[in-house]
């Protein structure tokens, strides 16, 4: 196995690229720190002076609304300066490589990059080529990893279910193309969930996925039987045109989450979706807006988790000081 780039020689989190290879304690520390940030807005605390004078760059080579916005809010609540760069305004369009783009920005004394890229491994590549004082946080790369999304979902699950030990979680939809699914499968396994299932037609299931620690279901009713948590994945419309799934109608019929299908899950099962949702394609409106849906609290937890990740990486020891007070 190659050396993990995420942890430095002192065992501290230097980059945040993927859940893989991170120890359980570290993930739990981030979740606990995030928990302490959740009620900041309601307590009237809008900002913490942790990262005053530091610069965070949102380097998004692929469009995103909620990830970019919540990262921006998170960094600003920690008093960092934030610069947003979206793909259409970047010189990679002119043929510059991503490593050159990062080098140029780093020459402007920026401290941390949140990277979103359409290709798997982009954040990992950048992390391997930046000087020691620069940090990389993965905002989603290709089909590989979206670790902050996975952690915010873990935080949401923890709030509602308290512990992972006895939980059965079903992830439903396009597993093949989903970085969210890959990161969540890893996170759930690391945190000790009793069972992780994936539910999808075979065209959307990657080879040997069971090696990641999941049980594979192709039948929605069976896959949802007695689960505690249902995670619905977004199905990209462009992947629907007869190649992987014959039609939106048939997909909804077989794998869309309706109230009827949700009856297979435990009565107190919670419904999650990383967004943006396609109503009437992968999830019925009545379920998305229903009592068991936690979709909106996922979004607000996103800010707390991203604050925690940024603080953990950039704040150094100060996170310890804070928890001591």
């Amino acid at each position, binding site marked *: *196995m190659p050396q993990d780039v995420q942890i430095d020689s002192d065992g501290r989190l230097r980059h945040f690229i993927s859940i893989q290879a991170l120890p359980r304690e570290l993930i739990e520390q981030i979740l606990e720190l995030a928990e302490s940030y959740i009620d900041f807005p309601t307590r009237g605390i809008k900002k913490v002076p942790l990262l005053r004078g530091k610069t965070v760059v949102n380097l998004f080579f692929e469009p995103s609304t909620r990830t970019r916005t919540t990262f921006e809010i998170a960094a600003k609540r920690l008093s960092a300066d934030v610069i947003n760069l979206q793909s259409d305004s970047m010189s990679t369009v002119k043929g510059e490589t*991503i*490593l050159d783009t990062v080098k140029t920005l780093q020459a402007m004394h920026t401290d941390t990059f949140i990277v979103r890229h359409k290709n*798997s*491994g982009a954040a*990992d590549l950048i992390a391997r080529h930046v000087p020691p004082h620069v940090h990389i946080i993965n905002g989603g790369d290709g089909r590989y990893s979206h670790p902050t999304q996975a952690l915010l979902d873990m935080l949401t699950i923890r709030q509602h279910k308290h512990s992972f030990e006895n939980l059965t979680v079903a992830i439903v939809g396009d597993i093949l193309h989903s970085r969210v699914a*890959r990161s969540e499968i890893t996170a759930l396994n690391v945190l000790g969930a009793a069972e992780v299932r994936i539910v999808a037609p075979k065209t959307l299931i*990657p*080879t*040997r996925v069971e090696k990641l620690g999941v049980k594979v279901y192709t039948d929605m009713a069976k896959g949802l039987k007695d689960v505690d948590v249902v995670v619905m994945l977004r199905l990209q419309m462009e992947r629907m045109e007869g190649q992987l799934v014959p039609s939106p109608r048939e997909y909804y019929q077989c794998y869309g989450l309706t109230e009827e299908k949700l009856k297979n899950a435990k009565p107190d099962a919670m419904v999650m979706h990383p967004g943006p949702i396609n109503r009437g394609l992968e999830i019925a409106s009545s379920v998305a807006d229903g009592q068991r849906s936690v979709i909106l609290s996922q979004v607000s937890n996103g800010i707390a988790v991203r604050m925690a990740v940024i603080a953990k990486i950039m704040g150094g020891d100060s996170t310890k000081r804070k928890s001591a007070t």
Partner: protein
Amino acid sequence: MKTTAIRNGRVIDPANGIDLVGDIFIKNRRIVEHSEFSNISIDREIDASGLIVCPGLIDINAKMGERGSSQSSTMQTESKAALSGGITTACIQPDTQPVVDTPAMAHMIRTNTEQQTGPNILPLGALTIGLEGETLTEMAALKAAGCVGVSNARSPVRNTLLMRRAMQYASTFDITVFIHSFDPWLTGNGRVHEGEMSTRLGLPAVPEAAETVAVARDLALVDTTGVRAHFSQVSCARSVSMIAESKHRGLNVSADVAIHNLLLTEFDVDGFNTMCHVQPPLRGEDDRSGLRKGLKDGTISVICSDHRPCRIDDKLAPFVQTAAGISGLETLLPLTLKLVDEEVLDLTEAIACLTCNPARTLGIGAGSLAPQSVADICIFDPDRTWTVDPDNMLSGGRNTPFAGMEMRGKVTHTFVNGKLVTGQTSGSVKS
């Protein structure tokens, strides 16, 4: 003309079943009988005690850079790299710029390379014009111009009827068809083997069936046309069994494998290691064992470097954006010797896979130390260890996944056409 004596080496010449300690004499570019030498003077002498003397290596698939290319790898750099690796003959695919689809191009490659100090370069002619898979080339003329076979390189011939006709036509003129079998639809934009690692890393994958479907199709066509066919760089265990079955039925087929597919697997891609980005991809453990088994039982008779020098920038990008290929000329021999250490092959078999076997596939006289053979000779120290350092590579491409690894076996001398092109003699001798 100088005469040379190579003394006291362990001479391994698999083509002639020879493995003994003795002397080799070169005169007028050719290897000569012992007895002839008893009464002539020797101009130079090489003390090969403790070294292995074998026919010069024949690399059946290498990209040798192009003349006047602005890339970092040119014919000059790649020739030096090949000679330092003991390679005296390299066979190149027709996917050069421009494509080798006319006798003039084939002729140009042959004459250009004959003028410089480098390994013998043998071109394959294109199977179809521009490698576009639509129109047959003038194969008889390509053969006359020096092409040792025809191939569509890594451009698939999608039209099965045209593939059949190409085989029929090649067979008419006794030309070997070299085939990289893969199905373009199943391959898609895949970059790594479809398996556990593609799933973990979320990289677009090439399923095993991308190769086996095409091998099955091409074998069926070989069966109906009777052409002599060579499958280039097979990567899947299932392909090996299909080829073995066809051989048993008497079809005239052979196959080669890239050395990296015998040593590495999909798991070496972990950490998005772009140095392991190759086409066909590094496959699973079972495939690697299947390839090794096929090599041992002779289904696969040739090991090649599949040398593809890349600029380092072409490897420094997110995985799917990187160029495929390994710079392999300088590590072909020591990596093949690793197979001997791992008891996949014995030493003679390993050397055969790099010498007389590829010579047979290419239909050339090289790969032998018999008297009167052209003196293409490789001498190496089987025990000398060295570490692969990309900065010290002679090839313009420093793209190797073996950087930092210890190799055992180092070429000390290379002769091409009787001329010492790598290494030193022990000085002049008067007898």
